[in-house]
């Protein structure tokens, strides 16, 4: 059982809790693969997705996960809600509480927004990505995919290449993977690697080959043009030439290596198209695993009250 009311990030989630989520997700995926998607555990509960940023896969994935567990779902996107009239995050949360909503899945451009909300509402809060800080369920589905492929995390070499600075996925992956005993390497243009990642346990590679050398997982991250002021690197084509991953570079990786990407992908920028569609690419599998993992998270969070 999870220790907290909410899932805000992997920074304060223990290895045991992560493993519990992953093993619960195994059962969820078994049901999903048989196209059984109507568990009764959240019947009579409501989950609201409160998205202050655009998203397809995360929002739909959470919504389907909640539906498959029997919950009712409501979608709020900031652009078409009272947020436009100046309502604060806490007030929005309290309004949802008053409507007897049970779970809030929030995505917000500011790091820490889910935590602020969680402190002020009765509902379970699940972080669906906050700014450049954390995206715990994406990292959990990455872990699920790795566990399914390799069985264990001990000594697993994970290379993360791309826009580390603006990526919450990179940070959640780093926090979780170091707890699980994996080795995390990172590579990006100097301008896109924030200070202190090495102090948090990442190995910062100087060259692409060094990051990919012997890696079991090669994870590309999207260049987040919407968050950049510009000037981080000269051009997309130059980025792909000097910082992207292609088939040539994959020869440095372990023979059993898999390619991952949290999506959406800029084809031909961080990964070449042929890598995205290759047999060892897990990018589509990640999407299915995402639903299983999110079902597991919603299930385990509500289990706290289910057993009282």
């Amino acid at each position: 059982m999870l220790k907290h009311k909410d899932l805000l990030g992997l920074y304060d989630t223990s290895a045991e809790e992560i493993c519990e989520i992953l093993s619960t997700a195994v059962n969820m995926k078994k049901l999903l693969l048989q196209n059984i998607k109507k568990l009764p555990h959240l019947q009579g509960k409501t989950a609201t997705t409160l998205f202050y940023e655009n998203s397809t896969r995360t929002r739909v994935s959470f919504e389907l996960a909640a539906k498959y567990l029997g919950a009712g779902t409501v979608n709020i996107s900031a652009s078409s809600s009272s947020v436009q009239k100046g309502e604060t995050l806490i007030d929005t949360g309290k309004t949802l509480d008053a409507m007897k909503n049970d779970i809030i899945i929030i995505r917000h451009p500011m790091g820490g927004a889910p935590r602020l909300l969680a402190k002020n509402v009765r509902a379970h809060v699940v972080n669906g990505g906050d700014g450049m800080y954390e995206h715990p369920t994406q990292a959990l589905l990455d872990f699920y995919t790795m566990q399914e492929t390799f069985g264990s995390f001990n000594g697993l070499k994970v290379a993360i290449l791309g826009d580390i600075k603006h990526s919450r996925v990179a940070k959640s992956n780093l926090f979780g993977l170091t707890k699980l005993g994996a080795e995390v390497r990172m590579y990006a243009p100097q301008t896109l690697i924030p200070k202190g990642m090495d102090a948090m346990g990442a190995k910062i590679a100087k060259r692409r080959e060094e990051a990919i050398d012997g890696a079991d997982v090669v994870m590309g991250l999207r260049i987040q043009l919407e968050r950049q002021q510009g000037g981080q690197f000269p051009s997309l084509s130059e980025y792909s030439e000097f910082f992207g991953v292609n088939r040539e570079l994959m020869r440095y990786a372990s023979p059993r290596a898999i390619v991952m990407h949290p999506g959406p992908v800029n084809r031909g920028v961080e990964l070449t198209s042929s890598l995205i569609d290759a047999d060892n690419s897990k990018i589509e599998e990640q999407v299915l695993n995402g639903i299983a993992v999110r079902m597991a998270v919603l299930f385990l969070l509500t289990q706290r009250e289910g057993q009282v």
Partner: protein
Amino acid sequence: MSVILDKAGLARMIVRLSHEIEERNEGTEGVCLLGIKRGGEAVARRVAEAFAARGVFVPYAGISIGMHRDDLVTSYFIPEAEKNEIGFSVEGKRVVLCDDVLHTGRSVCAAIDAIFELGRPACVQLLELIDRGGRELPVRADYVGKNVPMSRSEFLDVGFAELGGDDTVVIRKR
């Protein structure tokens, strides 16, 4: 530990139950057998084999009731479940629901739920190898192999050969 049914006794019982089904339904027209996985599936298979030995074909299949258990939410667990694809239609059929042991009756209710998900049968009859008593729901079997009233502290072990047993039914103290 006491053996209440040995291999030969089990075989005779299955044949007798198959005759009872034929008698009550005035033949085997429209009859099909659905066994609750996994013990009941073995019972259904054996009854179907007993029919086949007399040259009568009666379709049978196993059904998984995990998704229909009544304690999923109260005990908050994820069931081991399989999607039920039985290979024939139950629409308008006379379904004989087979299980090895009838105790609280909860599995039977879950199984009836599962059957109705597959279609609308003309009727559902219940066949149980052993009725050990202890009902918690108003459930009664139409065909009973043997009535064995037991206390809750006793454990009934039905060991089908196909499930790793030796085709005997044994009572154990817990």
